[in-house]
């Protein structure tokens, strides 16, 4: 479980507009990597390129190479559907399917692969909800609507839903920004647990969160609005936050901008 991602000179476009330029990096398996940087610098855009969600926007495309355990995810014969199943995503605002129960939400992605016996699905639901630290809170009301939970619980439900399909990588796009501090802490603890089985990439606005949670951190920035974003520096989290190489990184960390 947990694969490695390599990116090599990735350029990401919205139509003719170059949003992210020349990003190269390595993400080690079973690690937590954080992307930090000011608003609009392309970290979410780059994250969405990793599970081929970026190209869903009309006119958007990606150039360069992104591989998962040395397999090019943008290869000619690759089905984006498979990529997205292998590289899962959790979004900024929790988005459980409103018309489905908690149970159905968790198995929503899993069921796509075909019918299973009820016992098998029950096992998947319990495993995923335990994995998301939500089982004890909802085990007695699995048939209630997913939208009836609190924000933090909904986000953990979305995490359960994402891991139910057994991805290799879990991408998290500012997963705590819509949550209260208690729920945020719960999710951060969860991330530490999850990294045993998955490779995790998390985009965050909150530098302290990146420092708490990640093994490696990548700092994105852009020179001016309208210019493409770049990966300025990527290193072990402790180094980034104590002794960064680039001045821009240091300025951002110490709050001089951003």
């Amino acid at each position: 479980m947990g694969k490695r991602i390599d990116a090599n000179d990735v350029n990401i476009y919205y139509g003719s507009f170059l949003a992210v330029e020349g990003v190269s990096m390595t993400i080690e398996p079973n690690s937590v990597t954080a992307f930090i940087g000011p608003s609009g610098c392309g970290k979410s855009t780059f994250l969405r390129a990793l599970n081929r969600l970026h190209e869903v926007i009309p006119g958007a495309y990606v150039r360069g190479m992104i591989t998962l355990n040395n397999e090019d995810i943008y290869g000619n014969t690759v089905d984006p559907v498979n990529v997205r199943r292998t590289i899962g995503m959790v979004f900024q605002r929790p988005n459980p399917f409103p018309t489905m129960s908690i149970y159905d939400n968790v198995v929503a992605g899993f069921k796509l692969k075909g019918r299973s016996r009820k016992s098998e699905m029950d096992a998947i639901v319990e495993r995923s909800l335990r994995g998301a630290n939500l089982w004890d809170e909802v085990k007695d009301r699995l048939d209630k609507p997913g939208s009836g939970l609190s924000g933090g619980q909904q986000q953990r439900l979305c995490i359960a839903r994402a891991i139910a399909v057994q991805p290799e990588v879990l991408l998290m796009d500012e997963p705590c920004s819509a949550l209260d501090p208690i729920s945020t802490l719960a999710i951060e603890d969860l991330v530490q647990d999850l990294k045993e089985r998955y490779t995790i990439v998390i985009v965050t606005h909150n530098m302290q969160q990146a420092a708490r949670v990640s093994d490696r951190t990548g700092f994105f920035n852009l020179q001016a609005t309208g210019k493409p974003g770049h990966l300025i520096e990527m290193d072990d989290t402790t180094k980034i936050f104590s002794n960064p190489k680039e001045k821009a990184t240091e300025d951002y960390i110490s709050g001089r901008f951003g």
Partner: protein
Amino acid sequence: MATESVTPGRRDSMGLSGATLPRWGIPAVIVATILLTAALVAWTPIQGTAGTVLTAAVTYLVLQTVASSVVEGRRRATDRFVTSLIVTAFVVGVAPLVSVLWTVVENGLELINQEFLTHSLRNIGPTETGGGIYHGIIGTLEQALMTSLISIPIALLVAVYLVEYGGGKRLARYVTFFVDVMTGIPSIVAGLFIFTVWILIFGFQRAGFPACLALAILMIPTVVRSTEEILRLVPNDLREASFALGVPRWRTILKVVVPTGLPGIVTGVMLGVARVIGETAPLLLLVGFTTNINWNLFSGPQATLPTIIYDQASRPSDAAVARAWGAALVLIIIVMILNFIARAIAGLTRVR
């Protein structure tokens, strides 16, 4: 946290690549469809344009699904199947609508000339050519105007009530609900109602005006809804700023709120008018029919484009039917112009 064992066999062990249909895959399916359809048409009782098209469609769907199933797998095949189905539904749905417009244009265009637009059918027998629909154009336009005159003040007032004064009051809730319901009243029922009041109870004669009353019943709910939506879009800050200057509420509404929403309101009114000038049923009951030009809305039967179409279409002569097409074209043009202008206004000027 206990880790449970992974259920074997459920993992996506195929990696990221899935087999996809090669670039020549779909064209190959198309070619196969053509060949197979030709064969079926030649050797089975299937014939006719409709039959061929239907056979081709079904054949294509079957071949594509089978090919995709074998090469790409079940999920992809289902996806392609549904996509084809949806595209088919679109074509099937749009085709008759396009056909309606096309036949009207095709058959009606040759009728349109100066005589057609400026003369009535007076003294023109049903089987004779010549004459025109001038009397209908007059009738339709006059009635549209009168209907608007009746409907707009009432509709505006009701919308104002709902947005500005209604609040949570019970009356407002009833009115809201029944306005929505009123948008669904059949035009014949509205016509019957006015017929009952105007002719049976009051004993008046048929004329253009009672028809306008019936059309107003149909137009008011539509305009109320659209105006209401527009008025709600006007930001509260504007109202509050006006109140803070000491401007009374009614003045605020008239001088601030309504003018701000005016483009949207105009749009709603034009759409409402476009809808009612095509209604025929109340006209049959209340206006009657004539071949002469009648400028007077209040006395005597008056011709309108819809009644001309209805009347001419039911006469078994080519000349009459041709006139019906011509009148239909003119009516559609009027309706389309109104719609187009209305939406252009809405598109260009949105309340921000």
